């Protein structure tokens, strides 16, 4: 049994989430970069691996699996990680994490991702940003963050309870994408979310740092370069 093959682009939020999870649990993997900005996920080589043409994807000894949510559970069980990451026996705790991971798609991910994409891709291409679309997604994100704070977090330290879980890493990576376009204020302005994100960052700091250069850091640098040069 060799290392898990990990097809990813660290500029993708769910890719970073799986990266951090594997690092935090010392799961050996080989990173195969699939450059999303060059459209490599749509090319023949990667399509042969995964016809759905999305990352992240893992190949565990021939078993190919997409979707970060599915990958979290598979790796948790296969590698018998510490229970708090994705509780197996405690039905209620597991259900709460499942609940977050599924609610995440159309509430946090869609709105954070679309806010980022509208701003980043158009800025990088020198095109006008559709301000009304950005406003709409920001507004939806704000509502979603409010729900995250009042329903998932409440007085709890993390989304699933008192310990960090895959739900926290998933949310962290999605929200940090906004840092690349200087929009971290969107989530930091909610004090409960701000405090929680500080805790998550502290818990996974070394692994977060490891994916910075090829992840958020890379995009932030490009964005800063373009936006500062356009002021000249």
């Amino acid at each position: 049994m060799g290392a898990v093959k990990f097809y990813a682009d660290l500029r993708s939020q769910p890719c970073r989430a799986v990266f951090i999870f594997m690092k935090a649990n010392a799961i050996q993997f080989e990173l195969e970069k699939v450059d999303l900005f060059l459209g490599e996920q749509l090319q023949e080589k990667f399509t042969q691996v995964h016809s759905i043409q999305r990352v992240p994807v893992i190949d565990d000894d021939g078993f190919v699996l997409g979707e970060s949510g599915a990958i979290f559970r598979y790796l948790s069980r296969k590698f018998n990680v510490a229970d708090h990451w994705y509780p197996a026996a405690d039905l209620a705790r597991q259900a709460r994490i499942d609940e977050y991971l599924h609610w995440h798609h159309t509430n946090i991910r869609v709105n954070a991702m679309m806010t980022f994409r509208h701003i980043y891709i158009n800025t990088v291409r020198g095109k006008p940003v559709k301000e009304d679309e950005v406003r709409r997604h920001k507004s939806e994100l704000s509502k979603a963050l409010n729900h995250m704070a009042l329903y998932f977090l409440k007085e709890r330290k993390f989304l699933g309870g008192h310990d960090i879980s895959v739900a926290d890493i998933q949310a962290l990576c999605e929200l940090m994408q906004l840092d690349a376009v200087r929009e971290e204020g969107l989530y930091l302005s909610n004090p409960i979310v701000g405090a929680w994100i500080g805790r998550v960052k502290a818990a996974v700091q070394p692994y977060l740092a490891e994916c910075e250069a090829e992840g958020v850091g890379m995009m932030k640098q490009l964005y800063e370069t373009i936006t500062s040069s356009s002021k000249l």
Partner: protein
Amino acid sequence: MALKYYFDLMSQPSRAVYIFLKANKINFEPKPIALRKGEHLTEEYKRVNPWMKVPTLEDNGFILTESVAILRYLSQKYKLPEHWYPHSDLQKQARIDEYLHWQHLNTRLQAAMVFQHKLLIPVAKNEKIDEKKVQRFKAELPKVIAHIETYFLRDQKFIGGEDISVADLLAACELMQLFPVFEEDVYESNLKIKAWMERVRTTLNPYFDEGHAITYRTRDSYKKIGPSLGAKL
């Protein structure tokens, strides 16, 4: 009763959990919430689910939202037959999880938006159907259907293999949202998908039809409403 289930059969995930509860003979107190009457926006319902969506499960005070989380919770709590949600087979479980995560922004998003733009939105705004918007979402569906066929079903009877699982149930309910607005050709034109949908329906009947009663009635009403909104049937 210990288990309370808040739902509206107009909502695809509500249907999936409803059919699941019935098919597995799980006792529950039905709490219908009529979305069209705004019953999900009442203070009373907000206390149950502050996000004000359906479905919601209440198990002896434990509140759980998100149909996928509910389906998995129920399958484990009631120790249902493994095929519904395979816990012991890691790879089968993973493939079903993969479909359940993928479907949000694929099957669900596109099918729901076609339905919304062909019925709910024009009715709410008292306007004709915006065909451009309908086409925008409809255009994404052939790829979704192709992925369900070639990646998830892969010549198997169901997504998890030989037996039906929560993935098939949820997928079928989402695609059925196209039926009341006369867009079933989207999935029926793919013969493998058409056969699989029939298989799901047959396996789950009479509960599938019971869960889709409102869906079927809506199609009947659409025969008149649709053309008045500019739809060509």
